């Protein structure tokens, strides 16, 4: 029986995280469709989605048979690696150490690469195009599956988490069809920051549960973990910006002296 009162958090986390993945997959599908044709682009995308569906159907039910504390430890650990990786990147992008993720630039790069590969006007099927979208949908889709499992498996929230991911897919595909361009205006870094915080907080919470910790405030510890990691992120942005400024100053002084 689903506890819809607690379903909000997995729905939101799954929706936001999946939104980012669907946007990235959409960019590749749009690039392939524009340069190589929509039939192979959509065929590859459907193939990738179908393959993923089979994988989930085969292995998904096995997740329910794993003892809860092992599930909490494994999923908690994976969520921490995944969420902290996103958080680290969002902090470095905000501090200006890394460039912002640019869907338009990725779209231009992909279309240029696809054009240089030559068109397949006389071939029956453009397998390069099919493979490109198959791979993109498969890999981004794997992340969506992981996110749904990670946010939904432990608290019997797979259905709400799946609904969140599905809603993200509908929104992105709908926008993609309407706009016919990469969704460059999606505030991807802010989304990744928020999702990184949520997934890292959940990861720490479930790992702790799996290890037998007693969290202060029990479920209320999750917002506390989000707040702690948010504070750490802000400190990280400040220190990274400072270090970047100092490094830039040192290299320009060295350049002037030399």
């Amino acid at each position, binding site marked *: 029986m689903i506890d819809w009162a607690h379903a909000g958090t997995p729905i939101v986390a799954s929706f936001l995280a999946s939104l980012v993945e669907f946007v990235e997959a959409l960019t590749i599908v749009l690039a392939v469709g524009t340069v190589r044709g929509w039939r192979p682009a959509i065929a590859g995308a459907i193939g990738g989605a179908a393959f993923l569906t089979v994988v989930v159907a085969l292995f998904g039910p096995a997740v329910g048979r794993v003892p809860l504390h092992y599930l909490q430890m494994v999923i908690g650990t994976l969520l921490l690696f995944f969420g902290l990786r996103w958080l*680290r990147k969002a902090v470095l992008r905000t501090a200006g150490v890394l460039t912002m993720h640019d869907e338009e630039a990725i779209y231009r790069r992909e279309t240029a690469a696809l054009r240089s590969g030559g068109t397949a006007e006389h071939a029956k099927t453009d397998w390069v195009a099919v493979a490109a979208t198959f791979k993109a949908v498969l890999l981004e889709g794997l992340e969506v599956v992981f996110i749904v499992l990670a946010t939904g498996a432990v608290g019997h929230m797979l259905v709400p988490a799946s609904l969140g991911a599905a809603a993200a897919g509908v929104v992105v595909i709908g926008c993609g069809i309407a706009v016919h361009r990469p969704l460059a205006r999606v505030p991807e870094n802010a989304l990744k920051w928020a999702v990184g915080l949520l997934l890292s907080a959940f990861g720490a919470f479930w790992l702790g549960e799996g290890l037998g910790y007693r969290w202060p405030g029990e479920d209320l510890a999750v917002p506390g973990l989000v707040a*702690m990691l948010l504070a750490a992120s802000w400190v*990280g942005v400040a220190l990274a910006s400072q270090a970047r400024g100092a490094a830039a100053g040192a290299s320009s002084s060295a350049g002037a002296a030399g």
Partner: protein
Amino acid sequence: MSWIATTVREIWGLFVEDGSFAAAIALWLLAAAVVLPAAHVPVQWRGPALALGLAAILIENVRRSARR
């Protein structure tokens, strides 16, 4: 077979991007699982200790990454 290697590499990349960051997290998680109980840290403090350690690892890594 190269597509299998590519796929494995991509899946690995979902969880590990900066090796030192991932290694620090892994070591801290191991410490949380083994050292904290061995040191008789009260159960209600182990969670906050886990979180503080992760926050410190994040701050240290982004500061070091900015200097590179």
